[in-house]
């Protein structure tokens, strides 16, 4: 009955103390223009007052790849840590890392509008990851160029790289539903977040591949939901890649769990955000 009323008069609002409604997706849709504006703003702001601007978007993944190849391929002497193998793993990882960072900081970074204007708060973390789609495209092109240089065959599976990377973004967003709110309350996350990403890079098979490793290592690493994403991306890029499928199940389960609980946590947190910020 109440719901019906809300749809009849789109502009009318009822606010009641101590009621936590579900996130009103119809309302979120009404604010889609804001979603796009915020995403566009993030893109504009990103390289303002930087010296070489957009070049960073290319340099960052390339340099990271070179470092990883040096560490795992040259120093640790893993034969299969070649540029294409490493970059195929790094692409979805990069999407995850960037998205986790921007989405988790989104509430704090937008405190100025958060504390002055009403809009569905969920727009902030979700719109903040949209910018990373630009990085996705840039990385995708770099990957294609690397594959050409090293003489890899393109198959239809190469098209799957984009949706697979989206799964990395989905995990990041799920985590950020918790972390973005917690960050408002506990500034500890400022230190915690880079630390987790640093450790994560090592316990996710980014610099090395999981195929042809002992089964126990495969199972252990597959507990990390990112492993499924990273390995799946390799499977899409490399020919006849021996993909450890169970890791992907973990990924799917994690995304569902994170989004379900995260959405609930986020809308409960909306109640106190501006009391603390």
């Amino acid at each position, binding site marked *: 009955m109440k719901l019906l009323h809300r749809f009849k*008069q789109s*502009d*009318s*609002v*009822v*606010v*009641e*103390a*101590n009621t936590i409604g579900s996130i009103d997706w119809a309302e979120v849709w*009404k*604010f889609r*223009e*804001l979603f*796009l*504006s*915020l995403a566009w*703003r993030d893109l*504009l*702001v990103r390289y*303002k007052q930087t010296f070489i601007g957009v070049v960073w978007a290319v340099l960052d993944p390339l340099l990271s790849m070179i470092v990883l190849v040096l560490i795992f391929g040259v120093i640790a002497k893993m034969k299969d840590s070649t540029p294409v193998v490493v970059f195929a793993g790094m692409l979805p990882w990069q999407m995850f890392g960037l998205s986790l960072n921007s989405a988790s900081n989104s509430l704090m970074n937008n405190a*100025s*509008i958060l*504390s*002055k*204007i*009403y*809009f569905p708060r969920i727009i902030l973390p979700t719109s903040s990851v949209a910018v990373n789609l630009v990085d996705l495209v840039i990385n995708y092109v770099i990957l294609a160029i690397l594959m050409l240089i090293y003489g890899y065959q393109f198959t239809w599976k190469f098209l799957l790289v984009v949706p697979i990377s989206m799964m990395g973004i989905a995990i990041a967003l799920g985590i950020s539903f918790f972390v973005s709110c917690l960050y408002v*309350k*506990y*500034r*500890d996350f400022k230190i915690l977040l880079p630390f987790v990403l640093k450790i994560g890079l090592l316990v996710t098979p980014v610099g090395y591949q999981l195929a042809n490793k002992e089964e126990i290592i495969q199972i252990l690493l597959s507990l990390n939901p990112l492993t499924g994403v990273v390995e799946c991306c390799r499977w899409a890029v490399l020919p006849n890649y021996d993909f450890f499928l169970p890791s992907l199940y973990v990924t799917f389960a994690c995304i569902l769990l994170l989004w379900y609980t995260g959405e609930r946590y986020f809308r409960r947190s*909306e*109640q*106190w955000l*501006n*009391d603390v910020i």
Partner: protein
Amino acid sequence: MSDTVVSIENLGKCYRLQHQGTGLNAAAYSRINEELARMVLNPLRKIVGKEPMGSHTTTEEFWALKNVSLEIKRGERLGLIGRNGAGKSTFLKLLSRIITPTTGRFSMEGKIASLLEVGTGFHPELTGRENIFLNGSVFGLKRYQIQEKYDEIVEFSGVERFLDTPVKRYSSGMQVRLAFSVAAHLDPEIMIIDEVLAVGDARFQKKCIGKMNEVANTANRTIIFVTHSMGFVEALCNRAILLEGGEMTADSEDVQMVVHNYLESTIDQTLVKAEWRNPGGQVENEFFDLLYMGMEGAATRFANNRPIRVQFEIDLKKTDPRLMLGIAIFNDENSLIAVSFCTDVDPELPSRMQPGLQTVVCEIPPHLLNERTHRLEFAARVHQGPNITEIGTCPASIKFEVAGGLSDSPYWTERRAGFCAPHLKWGVQ
């Protein structure tokens, strides 16, 4: 569609104030380790039978807003007045849905635009132009709709030259001008404005008041407005609400009455009384000591049709024909109504005063002062010489109220506007 656009029931907001320990344990934000430690250790302590670990912080409840119920109708221009911390901003934040209420509920119909602080919703890195579009989309407008209003917005704000400058380089006045301009041109049905216009200069403030009047009258929009400038409230609002300590103490369409009550309450009751005694050392001069000043019989309330007598006790040091004792009469808005000296009618009066203690009396005739609270201030000067006291700053000051007795005629029973309420002579020729 009903005429009520906002209906509020029993609205309240409670904050938990944290009092933190001082020294090393004081932290600006909650620390996760402290809470985690409590979470893990307290169950263990319970098993062992020890007291649970307390927090370093103690919390206290603070009701910023309590039991506010009201209905706001379409086209009303509601002014919220009250001291700092009375809950005005909390009220506006609740209505803007920035914070959520602790008790009660409210419902609103129509598009809402709120202007809560300087630079509302602007992103400092973006240019003025980009911010206009961002701000518009925050209000839920499409890009082409903003484009239609764009020229008007820019013209009203008067920041054309700086449209391609990042907003972080704007002065606060420029930011407010742009923000108000955007909010006013986006056709909100309800406009919520906190004390932001104070930043702009007088010309822009006037422009804003004009714009708000125009919006409210021609488009029948509702405006909810907070300000400390009583002039704005009287110029703009057709209803006023007084908040005190989070509670609504007045709500009336008689805006002047609410403003009057508010100003009345801001006068410090302990400083101004019906009697004033010199604590020693005040109003010091070579001619006399002022010992006492008071209303006859220490009364505080007089009818308009009775004379009002004031007494002064002075200890005269020497007779001087140039000495002028007097009073200045102020109303409750601290506007000076009149100044009167004992030599105004009888120039010989100072010469008749003998050295030593004596009482000087002044009578304010009936049918002169209007119905409101007045303040009498002692004044003294030397004829063709210096002022002994400066009018408006003399500490010797008392307060009384004029109420009732305006006229026996049934045609004049209520207080009228104006400083005075005299009986003028009327006739037919």
